[in-house]
């Protein structure tokens, strides 16, 4: 109660300004311009860089200076005029406390305080520097939209709204982060999104107790129930507004975070990771074919090196005789055991990947050449690794690039399979496969199993795992994510 009293605005303008300066720690980017409106002393307060100077001059300063100076009225009338009559900005509101003024200022508002009244007027004239809407960097496509989300949540809202011109589309703003007070926007379609799921998402966001939310990655672990125990995530990312819209239509919930050009999608099923917006532009048979290729690539990227080492070291009888001879010849020329070779090469591959990931493109290419050609070729000729192994590694690496969304999981699981296959052959591979499958199958988001519709089986929707329905079929069905529970 006491805090509320000290936080409330007083009638003395000087006192309010002094307290606001103290609240903001005498920050140097706080700007206070004093003026007189109809005989009442007022102050226009902004944070430098957060507001557009053009809009400040055109929408606030000039209209205020044009008000007739001879009309002497009281502060209450001035404030009423500002908050209820004037059209300085479409986004206007009244403020009563210092903390709400601080919130508004940091969100790019101009606040006008008047002497003699414990109330202020806030006008949205945001004008901070932002990146323009650009094409997607990680979700490239051939025949779909070339727009991606940007860092400003309002811009992202407009990108979604433009695609779904429905009165049922809802945006719910929330704030999270004790210090950062980041804007978070829940996006959903009323009637499609499950109420229970919505309330769970709202509750989980409200319960976040972090000082700062600097991106969707800070929210994701809080949206998942057993984040630390799980290998995969029940929450998906997308940088494409069209992809988010497609998910909203299926009853999913989107979360936009201010400062990040990505949207979170809850829940995100395992099979969705094999989808691409281009699938809907391709012929049905081709979309199905590509999807099967993606699933096969995932298995190849995760398990192939492990299976290779298990087959060669533990079960050579599996292999064709000619192939076995060729492998044996290759291995005879190397100095390390197959298992050691594979572990070393895989770790080298991860180092190269990590090195090229965050470097400028030109240097990244140089690293690929140095790593792939020079090190690879020299390692084979010097007898450090065998040629068949290099083919296995190359195949695995290429397959892992098919699904960038699984990059983290593929890197770790691949090593797990190599160790399992290297130490215990197919017995180890089977143990590894069951443990990973059980972990994946244990995941669910508010009652929606992660492995749905494959397990539990929804036979009518199984086609979405291995292909896609034709547009006639899609037009006829009106299912949402709730139907997969």
């Amino acid at each position, binding site marked *: 109660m006491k805090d509320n009293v000290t936080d409330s605005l007083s009638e003395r303008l000087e006192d309010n300004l002094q307290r606001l300066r103290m609240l903001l720690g005498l920050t140097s980017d706080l700007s206070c311009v004093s003026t007189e409106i109809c005989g009442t002393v007022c102050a226009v307060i902004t944070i430098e860089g957060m507001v557009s100077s053009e809009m400040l001059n055109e929408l606030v300063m000039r209209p205020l200076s044009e008000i007739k100076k001879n009309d002497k009225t009281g502060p209450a009338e001035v404030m009423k005029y500002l908050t209820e009559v004037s059209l300085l900005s479409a986004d206007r509101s009244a403020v009563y406390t210092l903390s709400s003024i601080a919130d508004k200022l940091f969100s790019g508002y101009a606040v006008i305080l008047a002497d003699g009244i414990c109330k202020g007027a806030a006008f949205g004239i945001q004008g901070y520097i932002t990146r323009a809407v650009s094409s997607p960097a990680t979700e490239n496509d051939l025949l779909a939209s070339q727009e991606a989300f940007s860092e400003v949540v309002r811009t992202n809202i407009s990108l979604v709204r433009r695609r779904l011109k429905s009165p049922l589309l809802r945006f719910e703003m929330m704030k999270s982060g004790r210090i950062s007070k980041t804007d978070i926007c829940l996006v959903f379609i009323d009637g499609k999104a499950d109420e229970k799921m919505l309330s769970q998402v709202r509750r989980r966001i409200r319960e976040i107790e972090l000082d700062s939310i600097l991106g969707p990655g800070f929210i994701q672990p809080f949206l998942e129930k057993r984040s630390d125990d799980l290998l995969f995530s029940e929450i998906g990312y997308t940088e494409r507004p069209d992809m988010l819209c497609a998910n909203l239509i299926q009853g999913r919930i989107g979360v936009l975070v201010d400062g990040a050009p990505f949207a979170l999608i809850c829940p995100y099923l395992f099979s969705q990771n094999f989808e691409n917006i281009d699938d809907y532009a391709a012929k049905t048979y081709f979309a199905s074919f590509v999807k099967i290729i993606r699933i096969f690539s995932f298995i190849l990227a995760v398990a192939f090196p492990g299976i290779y080492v298990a087959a060669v070291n533990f079960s050579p009888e599996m292999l*064709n005789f000619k192939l076995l001879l060729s492998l044996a010849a290759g291995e005879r020329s190397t100095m390390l055991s197959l298992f050691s070779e594979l572990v070393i090469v895989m770790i080298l591959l991860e180092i190269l990947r990590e090195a090229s990931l965050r470097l400028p493109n030109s240097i990244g290419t140089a690293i690929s050449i140095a790593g792939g050609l020079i090190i690879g070729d020299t390692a084979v000729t010097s007898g450090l690794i065998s040629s068949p192994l290099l083919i296995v590694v190359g195949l695995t690496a290429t397959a892992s690039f098919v699904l960038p969304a699984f990059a983290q999981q593929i890197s770790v699981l691949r090593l797990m399979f190599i160790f399992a296959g290297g130490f215990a052959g197919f017995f180890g591979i089977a*143990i590894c496969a069951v443990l990973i*499958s059980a972990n994946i199958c244990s995941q669910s988001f508010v009652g929606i199993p992660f492995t749905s519709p494959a397990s539990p089986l929804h036979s009518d929707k199984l086609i979405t795992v291995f292909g896609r329905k034709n547009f006639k079929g899609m037009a006829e069905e009106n299912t949402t994510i709730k139907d997969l529970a």
Partner: protein
Amino acid sequence: MKKISAYQAAALLIISRLLMLSMYIADNGENTLLTAVTAASLDIFKMAVMLPAIYILQKKNRIISDRQDSICAVMLGTGALMFLMILTDRFSSLIESAAPEHFSKLGVTAVVLTACAYTASMGIKAVSRTASLLLPIMTAVFTMIFFELRPGILPDRLNLYSADPIAEISHTLTKLAALSSDIFIMFGVFPYISSRPEKTVKIYLTADGIMTLLFFMTSSSVLGTFSGKTGNVWTVLSYCTHGAVIDRSAAVFLAASTVFFLLTGALLFIILKDSIKAVKNDISDSKLLLALSAGIALLLAAMSVRRTSIATLSLYVCAVSVIAPIILLSVLPSSNAGKDK
């Protein structure tokens, strides 16, 4: 408690049955064709007994599902423990015999029990979903392998002759009935099925009949009279495969048995854990599962050192399962009884 569908339960049961088949050891001179016929008759008998039993259980609504009947819980728990020990012992022996230069029985026991405990810690839903996900994959793999076995399948090797058919049938019947852990597992799974458990029974027993017939007929037609001299039929059958891509599928058979064991073991762990929790509820799931896996591994190691057979131990276990409920009956308050009614 009611968490899994009838199909998922059936998948779990089919996998546990496949495990039993993969560990089947033929007697010296056994006629596997006769075994196939006996197994089919046993399957019909199981259906005739189990379907009415399930209907009665549903109607009476008195089963350990509500965790209030401590006696049933103790008996179910001891049964699960016993089966877990027997299966682990047999499975680790199988793996050790498959590649003695790579695997030791003790190491395999420790690894598989830890893996089962981890899988069980994911919950019954996860285990059943994994089973229903892996079963079609396994079926596809075995269909492929079956086609690879085709050139070796010769119908003229099928021979029903037996010197003493009645004695052999009765011996096989006793042997197969003793290996029918599926009956126990079915009643263990029953409390978890959300609806129509009779559907589980029908699906499972139909699949069981087909699988058993196919397995013994294949082994008989591929191995002929040698099938009774091979020991583990599953392993020997795997050596007879010859495919276009995979030369011999022994490793695939080994991996498949491991998958079957891990899922069956995890299911038994869950039944055991829930039975313990029905009596003592203040233990965390993960700690309990870890303690159980360590305890069973130590017990099996101790038995291995002392050369005690599981059969001897099962006698003690059965004795405990009778004595423990009597003690519990005298300890527990009377209001606990009949709460489900």
